[in-house]
């Protein structure tokens, strides 16, 4: 019946199996065809599913294959759910995924681990689709951890270096801290509702008035949000994402910008009706999101590595999405996930194209003047920059504006933080553009050898650029004469199981706010561009004027060093202490070896008088007899 729907996640998986098992025997072309082909096919199927969903809004299809776990009350079916939210997300994952696969064909061309790379990439798409389509929290968790594994493997792809595996480990462990939250959240929900299937959970929770389970639900949703902060790199668990750039650039684009990192936002959307019941959690989410958006943007101002700038930009943009969720705009948050996927993937792939052209040079300070040499890359990245800074009518404008507007309704302070972050975003993006594409080339050798990337790389850039320009029209807010269609489309998913869904009416100076934020962003963008267009002189002068501030920002506030000192060091110290104190000294030393040694020593002592010489025994006997005489006859 719905076999083709099962194929959506499993085609990439089959691709993974083929490439993982056959590997080099497939040849480069074979690997490329299987790698790209399976994801493209899966995209086509998603497109069909999406079209069907659009034609009949409000549909919800739950496919169940068999019971995965069944112990006592704990019953977890192996099932997929197709509803507006999951289909839209699946479409984004397979669509962007297919483009990035295509791009990788060119980008990884000279790499010897070609089959390994594509196998991991396909496995990633599979797990991401399981995450998106899974019908129960444990199954979503399978995808959740699976993408984490792929991320770990791909960050550490250049495993012969020291830093790449270390970055992978950091990513995995930081995510595990988030996973702890997710596991605890699941435990609480299961203990309370007796089910972990998303549909049943929402229905059961929908029947409740907020007061009845307020404490339980607040705790559970907060814990789930901890999981989201791990995967979606929010404060304080963002530390892994910038380091994750140690992986190949297509990986940064696909996993660490467009798809995996949005899993946290997806999770909150998936359980939106639950979060809706817990205002405290939503407030926490909003503040965490706003703080992350602002904090990460400041770090982005002073990075030299082109990918690091984009990485902190991603953290910051994820902050906006989370802020949107916290402001109650689940659809707005998701919409930003959707638009961001396009323009951030574009920016990363553009950066990859630059890096590829300069033979793996990532330092912005060594670039410059590449405009004429890399025309495709330049123009597409320009569109990406316009989109991320929120210039109408590019994609970022509509989604970011909707989020900022909702933030304003929640608290003007949140709005202020968001707008400030948007200004910084605009500044560092134009700084990046100016440093890379304008001015004089600062590394003559690299510049001389620079060349535009092959077609497999530029085609995805163009497609993504086109997307970045237009996808925003899917959600033109009502204030601008649109219908925020994305919100209407998602509404059945976001309110599933709720008995009384109220229509929310916004009131506020929407257009005015948008004018202010856009105007400020343009001004800051110009400032950033003007400061760096002419080279590094102005930047160096500024750094010299505020050395302390510059050191802190460029040093990423020394958070990593702090973690090493405050967390990792003490944990290792504690492990050593426990081991020496309990195992070595107390248990083995005093508890086990001491009695053993005492037994041996006492045996040895007693053995001393077993000399075998009769005269010694006679002497002892005599002494004993004398002793007895003295005792009794005294």
């Amino acid at each position, binding site marked *: 019946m719905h076999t083709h729907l099962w194929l959506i996640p499993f085609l990439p998986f089959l691709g993974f199996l083929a490439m993982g098992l056959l590997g080099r025997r497939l040849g480069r072309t074979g690997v490329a065809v299987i790698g790209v082909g399976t994801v493209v096919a899966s995209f086509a199927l998603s497109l069909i599913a999406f079209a069907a969903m659009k034609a009949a809004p409000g549909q919800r299809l739950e496919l169940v294959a068999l019971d995965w776990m069944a112990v006592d009350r704990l019953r977890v079916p192996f099932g997929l759910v197709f509803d507006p939210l999951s289909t839209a997300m699946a479409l984004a994952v397979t669509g962007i995924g297919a483009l990035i696969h295509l791009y990788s064909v060119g980008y990884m061309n000279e790499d010897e681990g070609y089959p390994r790379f594509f196998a991991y990439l396909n496995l990633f798409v599979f797990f991401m689709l399981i995450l998106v389509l899974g019908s129960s929290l444990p199954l979503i968790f399978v995808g959740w951890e699976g993408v984490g594994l792929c991320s770990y493997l791909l960050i550490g792809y250049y495993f012969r270096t020291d830093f790449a595996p270390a970055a992978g480990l950091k990513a995995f462990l930081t995510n595990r801290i988030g996973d702890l939250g997710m596991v605890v959240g699941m435990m609480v929900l299961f203990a309370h509702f007796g089910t972990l299937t998303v549909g049943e959970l929402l229905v059961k929770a929908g029947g409740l*008035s907020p007061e009845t389970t307020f404490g339980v639900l607040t705790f559970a949703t907060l814990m789930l949000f901890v999981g989201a902060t791990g995967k979606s790199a929010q404060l304080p668990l963002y530390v892994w994402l910038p380091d994750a750039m140690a992986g190949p650039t297509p990986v940064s684009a696909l996993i660490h910008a467009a798809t995996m990192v949005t899993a946290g936002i997806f999770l909150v959307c998936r359980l939106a009706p639950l979060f809706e019941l817990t205002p405290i959690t939503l407030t926490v989410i909003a503040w965490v999101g706003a703080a992350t958006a602002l904090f990460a943007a400041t770090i982005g101002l002073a990075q030299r590595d082109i990918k690091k700038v984009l990485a902190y930009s991603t953290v910051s943009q994820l902050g906006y999405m989370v802020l949107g969720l916290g402001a109650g705009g689940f659809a707005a948050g998701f919409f930003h996930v959707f638009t961001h996927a396009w323009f951030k993937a574009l920016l990363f792939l553009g950066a990859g194209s630059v890096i590829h052209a300069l033979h793996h040079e990532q330092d912005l300070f060594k670039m410059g003047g590449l405009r004429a040499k890399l025309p495709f890359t330049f123009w597409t990245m320009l569109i990406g920059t316009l989109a991320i800074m929120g210039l109408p009518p590019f994609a970022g404008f509509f989604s970011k504006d909707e989020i900022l507007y909702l933030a304003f309704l929640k608290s003007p302070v949140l709005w202020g933080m968001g707008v400030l972050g948007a200004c910084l975003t605009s500044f560092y993006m134009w700084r990046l553009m100016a440093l890379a594409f304008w001015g004089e080339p600062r590394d003559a050798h690299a510049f001389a050898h620079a060349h535009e990337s092959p077609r497999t790389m530029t085609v995805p850039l163009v497609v993504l650029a086109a997307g970045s320009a237009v996808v925003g029209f899917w959600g033109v807010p009502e204030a601008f004469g649109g219908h925020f269609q994305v919100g209407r489309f998602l509404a059945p998913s976001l309110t599933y199981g709720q008995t009384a869904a109220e229509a929310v009416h916004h009131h506020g100076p929407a257009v005015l706010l948008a004018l202010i934020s856009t105007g400020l962003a343009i001004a800051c963008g110009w400032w950033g561009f003007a400061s760096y267009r002419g080279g590094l002189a102005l930047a160096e002068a500024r750094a010299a004027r505020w050395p302390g501030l510059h050191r802190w920002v460029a040093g990423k506030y020394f958070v990593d060093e702090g973690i090493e000192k405050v967390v990792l060091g003490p944990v290792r110290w504690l492990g050593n202490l426990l081991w020496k104190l309990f195992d070595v000294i107390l248990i083995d030393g005093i508890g086990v070896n001491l009695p053993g040694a005492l037994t041996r020593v006492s045996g040895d002592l007693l053995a001393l008088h077993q000399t075998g010489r009769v005269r010694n025994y006679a002497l002892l006997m005599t002494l004993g007899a004398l002793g007895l005489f003295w005792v009794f006859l005294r």
Partner: protein
Amino acid sequence: MSPDMMVPWFKNLPLWVTFVPLLGVLALLLVPKEKRRVFELGALGITLFDFFLSVPLWFQYDRGSAAVQWVTDLSWIPALGVRFSVGMDGISLVLFLLTTFIGVIAVWCSFTAIEERHKEYYIWLLVMQTTMLGVFICQDMFLFYLFWEIMLVPMYFLIAIWGGPQKLYAAIKLFLYTLSGSVLMLVAILAIYFLQKKVGMEPSFAISRFHEMAPYIAQQAPTYGILLALAFFVGFAIKVPMFPFHTWLPDAHVQAPTAGSVILAGILLKMGTYGFVRFLLPILPDATKALLPWFIALSLIGVVYGALVAMIQKDIKKLVAYSSVSHLGLCMLGIFALNPTGITGGIFQMINHGISTSGLFLIVGIVYERRHVRQIADFGGLSKRMPVYATVFMIMTMSSIGLPGLNGFIGEFAILQGAFQAFPWAAVVATSGIILGAAYMLWMYQRVMFGPLNEVNAKMPDLNARELAYFAPLVVAAFWIGLYPKPFMDILHKPVEKLVQQIDPKFFEAQRLDEAQKAAARTGQAGMAAPGAAAHGGH
């Protein structure tokens, strides 16, 4: 032929499976000791045959019944009430099958690792196999104690003869440690035996009789039950091993040959957890409940302590050994949750630990055999030279840290869900094991497999066909349990249900009541939602 003629063979299948290795030993005894290949292939053949002989049990087992199946009950020492009584329920069955499964691998991994005294070695391995299988089938306390104690002898020799530089210290430590626990357990067994006389029964060592004694023990002074429970507890806790009775384990593992470690981790440790499930919980439910806070605390300490100590180990084998302490702490937490989810999770954790930790010891064995060193610092960058090894290592690592889709997750997840229902905070603390487990395993993996390749290791060969052949079943099992654990859950369902009822006869009734109440609250709320909202609007 009449059906009666067919029955005995099938009915006795577990018995056959148990004693086939011993019969094999008799045959091998006749072979001159120089014929190394005969012992290797012979032992492999015997364990393989034994494994395939045990597979039909999986299909024969009646999943709809909680009863002990394949019962064979013969008179043995009537004067003492001792019978030769064997049989299995689902809990025994899964561990029994794990044993025949791991047995093959333990033999197969020894071919090149063992370089002296082959005849004795393989004979001890086979004897070990029979004694371990015996523990899982016996239905008589006397017989159980017999197998339980004899099991130590082959293990002692495996470590003391074929072990590392400090093999004697390790072997004697293992022996004395476990023996002291077993003796306490024997006291408890005898106490319950004599209690039967006191309450006017004909004394018997039948395990079912011991289970029936639960209410009589409950009638005695509370201290009586508590002392018995403590005696059982120490006996089993040493074997598990639970903190603070674990220090024999790192030494035994580090000194043991690879196969010894595999058997230790795969099966021997499960004897302890099995003992808890089979004896302590059903015989002494009240005393267990009274001591539960202490038991839970020790389990939790095991989880966190084992992980923290594993993190700073420099020897790979020692690291894996301490990871066992952590994993089995979690296993015990599940069992002490005393509800079906937790106990099932605990039993899964036994199987999973048997698969993934055995796998990890084999992994260590591979590099040890090639370089005769085991310090993490001695390696680095092996991924490049040994891609297949790297893949298997990664799968086993992921299985050990509980990545969903692999076996480890199923056990962990069920344990945590079960434990949370019983002791929410204990479960929350135990989740820290999720982070720490990933930390020490992946950090170790990174230092061994990634980074620049050391000159000394540049010529390490990848897995050969034999090595791949014994890893393959472990990998398949890890994926099977991770992806489709339900068949195991079906086998465990009834026996676990029965066990929970033995511990708390009202458990299921209470659970049903609770659910009904919640459902009623929900429908009530749904009906009240509108007026409720209105009332609150007034505030």
